[in-house]
Structures are given as C-alpha cells and as structure tokens.
C-alpha cells in the first residue's frame, strides 16, 4: 500500500512539497487548506485588489493539474493533530490517518494588543479573506491609516492609493525599512512615498484605535498624540507563524514549529515547511524563521526528499530577495546589512535624477564581493551568485558589471558612470 501523506496548508511551501513527493514517489497525497481549494500565489493579493488581476489569474496551475498529478485537494479546517497516533481531526469531526504529516500552515498577521484592534475596518493583510474584507471595508472611504513600515505595509499603501484613498503611513523607524536597508536606499524610498502624496509619519507608533458609535474605526491616536481621522486601519506590523492548533499537540514549538535541518519536527513522521517553521539551529547568517516566497519553495523541496527517503539537508545558498516599491524595483544578492560591519567596505552610486541606485559591498581585507543592492535596475541572479561563490574581487566585479545588467533592451546603460564613480572613490582598488 502506498504511504499516505497529509499536507496541511496549500501555500507555496506545502504545494512545492506535494509536487516533489509526487515526482519522486507513488505516495497518496492530500493537501488540506481552509483558505482556498486551489493553490494561488499569495504574492499577487495586492494585484487582485488593485484590479490588475482576478483571483483566477493568480493560480499558477490549471485546476485539472491536481487530478492529473494525483494530488487530492481538500478545503477543510484542521482542528486537532494527534501526532502520537498518526491522525488529524477536521472541524466536521472527520478523522484522517497519515503515514507522514507536513505542516505548512504559514503565518498570521501580528496584532500587539492595541485598544480597538478588533474594530470593524481594522485588519491585517495576509490571505485571500483579508483582501475580500479589505474590499468591503474600503468601499467609498476617503482616509486610511497603514501601521507598520515593512513590505506588506508599503504594498497596502499602494493598494489604497489605487482606489484614491488618502493614506497616512505610520512607521516606527526613523526612515522606511532602515532596519533592513542602508540609509541611502531607505531615503530613496522615503522620497518616493512622499512623492505619491502619502502622509508619511516616521518614528511614529500606534497607541490606540478609536471607535465611532457603531463599532467601526473612526480615528487612531499615535504616540505623538496626534489623532488621525480614518475609516480604515491596516495593521501590517509583521507576521508570525500560524501555529495555534499545533501548540495543543505533541509537536514541539517555540515561536514557530521547531524543525531540524531536514524539516523534521520532534516527531519522526511529522515535518514542517515554510513560514510556520523555526529552525532549531539556523544556518549561519540566516534567521531562524524565514518568511520569503523562495525559501518556502526550498523548504518544500528539501522536505519532500526527506519524506520519500533521500536524506537531504537544507542548503539555501546565498541570500537574495526582491521587492517593488510603487514603480521602483529592488533586488538584493548576498547579505547587505543596514549598517556595514567592521570588515566591510561598501560603495553607493545613484544616477543624477535619483531614480536608480546601486550599492556593492566587499571585504576590506580580501576585497571579495559580498553583496549588492539595486534600486531601479534589474540585476542578474546567476552572475551575482557566481561572484559570491567565487569571492570575486570587487574591482573585477565593477569592471565586469555590465554582465549583470538585466534591464530590458534600449534602457539607458549606467555601468560606465558607475565604474567612474567607483574608481574615483576607491582608486586604490585598481592596483590590487
């Protein structure tokens, strides 16, 4: 008899895991989700609200794909896991047995116990139901407040703008995302936010959300004692693992579900992947909880190997990421911290109009390339990855920089200007 695998969660991590188990085995696979029957791309939620796409466009596979690949999809809510006896219980009381269980339950939006955080018109943004709620909550409104200056925060701002809703953007930091981005990059994005006529309130925190007479939000109070009238509040102050029902089981958890480097939990036949995972001993330089699209893919693939019996350790390789702030694309390869370390040297270049920017970082002593941030310029992943693997010297990187350009044809080239500026500042590196 084929082994039975149950995967709870049909996000990118759970689905990648299911697909790879199918590729490598004949296991009986069931994917359970309470959010949607079919896998869709969570990263596209903002585009549904903005009217760029419909939900059907966000499904990366056609509906017949799952039957063809013998992956059973079940839209249901899992109430209980009995890990010692290898079964789960759905909210309608149905019991399902498994040989392997994969938890891919994703995240939930953080709420920090603010007064009024559960009022009508106050919400986070993580899943499809959130977007549907946001759609209902923002019909005909004029003013909204977005709390929290992360990626979901700025996406929410863009979403609201697309509906002509004036936005006040409260950010705890002194500059947007400056816990992740160096000062110049962060400043570029601040300017962009202001350019879009958003009331950007830096170094400002939410204190309280005030109701009107009908249980709806009417204003927010900040720690700077402002009262801001609004009809909608988005709480985008990060996400954390969605593991409430796992905590009641025998599966070991902390902030997330604790796993080893094979994505195995404390129970041998229970695995966990994606946002809900916390590594017991994270790989050097990486966080214990990773909430990124592509790491979800890697988790899923690696876990699948371990489940079908090919032992595989998690080896994610060099860090990379990307985002888009309004019209400004951001890409990063290697790890560039917000503030450079003792052994680091870096160089920042910006074009005359302030629309493009590149930062490269290298090791002070070996001159080896350590990472790159780019804004408004598309950079090739493979090329940067090779530079990182080969620890290419920074002057060689700069000299060869056009190899990494991934901008569309006819776009203005910037490499000569970039190289000249670099050599002006770091001329000594030429001789090394």
């Amino acid at each position, binding site marked *: 008899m084929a082994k039975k695998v149950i995967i709870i969660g049909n996000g990118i991590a759970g689905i990648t895991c299911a697909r790879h188990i199918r590729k490598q085995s004949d296991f009986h696979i069931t994917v359970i989700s309470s959010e949607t029957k079919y896998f869709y*791309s969570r*990263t596209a939620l903002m585009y549904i609200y*903005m009217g760029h796409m419909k939900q059907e466009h966000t499904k990366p596979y056609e509906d017949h794909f799952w039957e063809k690949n013998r992956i059973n999809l079940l839209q249901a809510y899992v109430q209980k896991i009995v890990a010692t006896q290898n079964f789960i219980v759905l909210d309608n009381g149905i019991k399902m047995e498994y040989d392997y269980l994969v938890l891919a339950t994703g995240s939930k939006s953080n709420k920090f116990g603010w007064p009024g955080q559960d009022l009508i018109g106050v919400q986070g943004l993580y899943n499809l139901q959130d977007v549907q709620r946001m759609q209902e909550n923002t019909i005909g409104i004029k003013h909204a407040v977005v709390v929290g200056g992360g990626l979901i925060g700025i996406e929410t701002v863009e979403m609201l703008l697309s509906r002509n809703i004036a936005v006040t953007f409260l950010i705890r930091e002194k500059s947007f995302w400056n816990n992740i981005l160096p000062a110049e990059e962060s400043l570029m994005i601040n300017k962009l936010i202001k350019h879009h006529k958003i009331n950007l309130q830096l170094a400002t925190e939410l204190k309280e959300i005030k109701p009107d007479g009908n249980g709806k939000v009417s204003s927010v109070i900040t720690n700077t004692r402002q009262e801001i009238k609004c009809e909608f509040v988005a709480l985008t102050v990060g996400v954390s693992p969605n593991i409430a029902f796992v905590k009641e089981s025998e599966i070991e958890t902390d902030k997330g579900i604790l796993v080893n480097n094979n994505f195995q939990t404390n129970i041998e036949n229970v695995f966990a992947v994606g946002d809900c995972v916390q590594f017991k001993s994270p790989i050097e330089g990486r966080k214990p909880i990773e909430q990124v699209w592509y790491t979800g893919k890697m988790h899923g693939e690696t876990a699948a190997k371990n489940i079908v019996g090919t032992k595989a350790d998690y080896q994610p390789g060099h860090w990379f990421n*990307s985002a888009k702030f309004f019209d400004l694309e951001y890409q990063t390869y290697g790890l560039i911290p917000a503030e450079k370390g003792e052994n680091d040297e870096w160089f920042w270049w910006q074009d005359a109009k302030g629309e493009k920017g590149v930062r490269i970082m290298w090791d002070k002593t070996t001159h080896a390339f350590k990472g790159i941030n780019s804004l408004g310029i598309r950079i090739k992943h493979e090329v940067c990855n090779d530079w990182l693997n080969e620890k290419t010297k920074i002057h060689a990187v700069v000299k060869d920089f056009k190899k990494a350009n991934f901008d*569309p044809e006819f776009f203005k080239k910037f490499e000569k200007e970039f190289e000249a500026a670099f050599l002006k500042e770091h001329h000594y590196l030429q001789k090394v």
Partner: protein
Amino acid sequence: MEFDMSLSVANHPSSEGLNAKMKIGVALVTISFISIIIGLFNQFYHPVLLVVFFVTVSIGSILYTKGLYQNTTAGVKNNGVMFKSLTNRGLWAWVLGIVLTAFYVILYWYPQYLGLNEKGNTGLVRFFDPLSYLLNGKQASQWFVYGTFYTLAILLLGIKFMYKNRHSKYQIFRTASIMFFQTAFAFLIPELLEKFNPTPQYFTKDIKNMWPLNFYFTDQWNIDGMLSGGNLGAFMLVMGIAMIFIISPILTYFYGKRWYCSWVCGCGGLAETAGDPFRHLSDKSTTAWKIERWMVYIVLVLVTIISIAVLFTMFYDNPAKYWLNKTSFSYMVIVFFGILTAILLIKRKTVFKDFDRKAYIIALAVIVFTIVCITNVLMSNGRNVLFMDAGTLRQWYGFFIGSIFSGVIGVGFYPLMGTRVWCRFGCPMAAILGLQQKLFSRFRITTNGSQCISCGNCSTYCEMGIDVRAYAQRGEDIVRASCVGCGVCSNVCPRGVLKLENGPQKTKKLNGPVQYVNGVFEVTE
C-alpha cells in the same frame, strides 16, 4: 493635532472620473464623431468637415491621453483593468464588439451603405474623397476609408500606449516603429505610388505585407499587374519573393518573429495600440494552446496548397505567357518540398527533437501529400491540383480566412477574446515565422534566476495566451513559436524576472521548480 487630509490629494484620475483635459478630449472626439455621422447620412457635405474630423479626433485623443496619465508616475498602469466594464467583458465590451463586428460586415459585404459608388461616392466614402484625391488622385474606396481609420487608430492610440509606457524605451521604440510602418509603408507610400507612378493594372504595393498574410500575392491579377508594372512591378515581385524566402528568415534568425509581428505588421500594430486595453483577455489554458497549434498550422497548409494550386492553374491556362510554365513550376515546387522533407528527416533528432511526435508525422504527411498532388496533376495533365477549381478554393479562403477570421473575428472580437485572436489562431505568416523562431532563432525570453514569485502578471498580460509564469517559476527560458516579443511580460513583472534577448547562448532549461538548490543553479542543458 489633526492631520490635514487635503494634503493627500487623490492622484489617480482614472478612477475619479474625468479631469478637465479628459473632458475637453472627450468633447473634441465627440465632435469628430458628429462630423463623421453628418458625412455618413449625407446631411451636409463640405471638405472642411474632413479637416474638422482630423483636427478634433487627433487633438481630442491626445488631450484625453495627457489628462489620463498626467498625474501618474512612469510605470505599470493596470489599476482597475479587471473592474472596468469595457476591459472586463462587461456591457461596454459587448457594445464595442458588436459595433466593430457590424462595421466589418458592412465594410466587406455591403460597402454601398458606406456610400461606395463608382459613379460618384456618397456618405462616408465621399467624406474621405478629398484626402483620397490628394494622395492618389482618385476618388475614395471603402478600403481607402478603412485604411485611413486604421492608420489613425494606430497613430493616436499608439501615442497613448507610448505615454502609458513612458518608463520603457523598448515599448516606446517598438510603438514608434509600428506607427511608422503603418503610416508610411501601408498607407502613404502605396497611395502616393498610385498617384505618381500610375500603372496599367493594379497590384499590391505594401512591401511589408508579404505572402502568406497577403494571400492575394499569388493571384493572377496581382502577378499580371506586377509584370506589366514596369520597374515598380518588377521590384514588388522580386521583393515579395525575397521577403518570403530570404529576408524574413534572416531577420527572424537574428531577432525572432517580433521584428515583424510586434514591430512592423499592421495587424499586430492595431493589436498593440488600439487593442492594448484588451490584451489580457486572451485564453491562457493549455486547451487553447492545443487549439491554437491545430488551427494556425491548418491555415498555413491551406494557404500554401491553395496558392500553389492557383499558380498552377494560372500556368496551365496560360502556357506561354510567363517565364515559368506549369512543368517548370511543378518541378520547383517538388524540389522545394523535397528539400523540406529531407530536412525534416535528417534533422529529426536535433532540430525537431522537441517536437511533438504526432505533429512531426503530420507535417511530413502534409508535405508528401503536396508533392503527390502536384506530381499527379502534372502527370495526368490535369488543371486542378486539389481536385477542384483553384479559383473557387481561393475565393473560399478569402471569404472564411481573409475576411471573416482576420477581420470580423480578428478585430471585431477584440473586447471579448483579446487582441491577437487572428495572429494566434489564424495568421499563416505568424505560423511560418513561429516555426522559424522555434527552430533556429537566437531570440528568447530569459528568466532571472529564482526571483519569480509566481504572481501571474506576465501570463495575465500576454496577448498571445502564453503561460509565461509556467516557465518563469521554473527559471526556464521561454522559446515559444507564438511569442511576438511585445515585451509586456517583462514590463509588468514586479520582480525584474523576464528579459527579451537575442543571443548566441544556448537557452537554459532548469531542473525542477527550485532550480537554485544548495547554492548552485541546477542546469540540465
């Protein structure tokens, strides 16, 4: 302290109704419509009306464009596309679809209602007489009216597309090219040649409109026209043949079929400009892809065999009139298709290895069938290559494919089925260039490592219905016969994943969806 909300003024006029510029634009375009309607119903006729039409429609549309985008930043502008009735198969889409379809039906089969009359036009056709006299020295025909509308649509909505995509030089250059080729090559040059180089018999003078898109290239009237047309006729004949066999394969080798389909072609030109708001309506399913492959290659086979049959019959009917006769023509056809068969057989393990086995066998069978047909008709001294009169076949093709498919459905159904229905399912030119692109072109769309987040913008806005995301999320390069290289997938990608490239490098196929494992890219080929 209370925050002053007036600081946060709305900055997307498109969802807040019309601003002043847009209102004036709409008013001017309305005036242009009124002038057309006055012309159509013969209420009042004066050449000034035509001037009023051109001035108001041009200024009105440009003002509207300015108003629409003036307060937006340079970048992707798809807000609300899925909400609007016009762009989401709502009531307005159906109204526009029906109006366009009706226009094509009248244009093709009832031009008299537009006022066409050889003894003196009335109505809409007369409305354009002054321009026609100015350009070609003759009174207007319904095709002249159509050509004028068509060119105007590409120019004015091309400007709109350029302004909308002003952040992308690729889109700006590409649109400028479309506008130039339509205005100069399809419209002005043929009309002016008609005037300054009068020939005894009419023949087509749009160099870029090559066979088999221009299936009447092989019609006897066109060939006789070219042969009696002096230097110009000879040039058009030589160019026409060179375009098919030499120029287009070479350009496709270097740049992919985009050099034609999204930079030069008039059908593509209208789709890219006037059709832009509807590009997302193309069907992305694998079923649609399957139908596409059957249909477009069937049309290619039809037009090829029918053209051969038409030429054969022409040589048969006129044994001594031309440089070629039916025997030498048949030998040429047999040699050409013999070479194709040889290539198919010899290269089956390299060039055609990705081909579907069934498709490969069908292709071989069709080619052999053509050789058998022409050998048979030659040996039996018959007149009909396909067992019936070639002229009749040619007429059917013209009716069903040339008129109904490319015109009525191709453009009439823009707001319902997307803009490239003809290009994707019916155009034999696209079929040939697509085969060349798939088999030996340097063009492909490359993907950027593992940056794809599977959001689906690329697939949604692909007018050719290619599921771009399916490739991008695997990190695989995209080499698809149907890709016209419009560059919009790359344009709408929020993570900088896609790039149109011509290059000597091998395309990459990556191993599995997580191509980036253990810090290395797993490249299989």
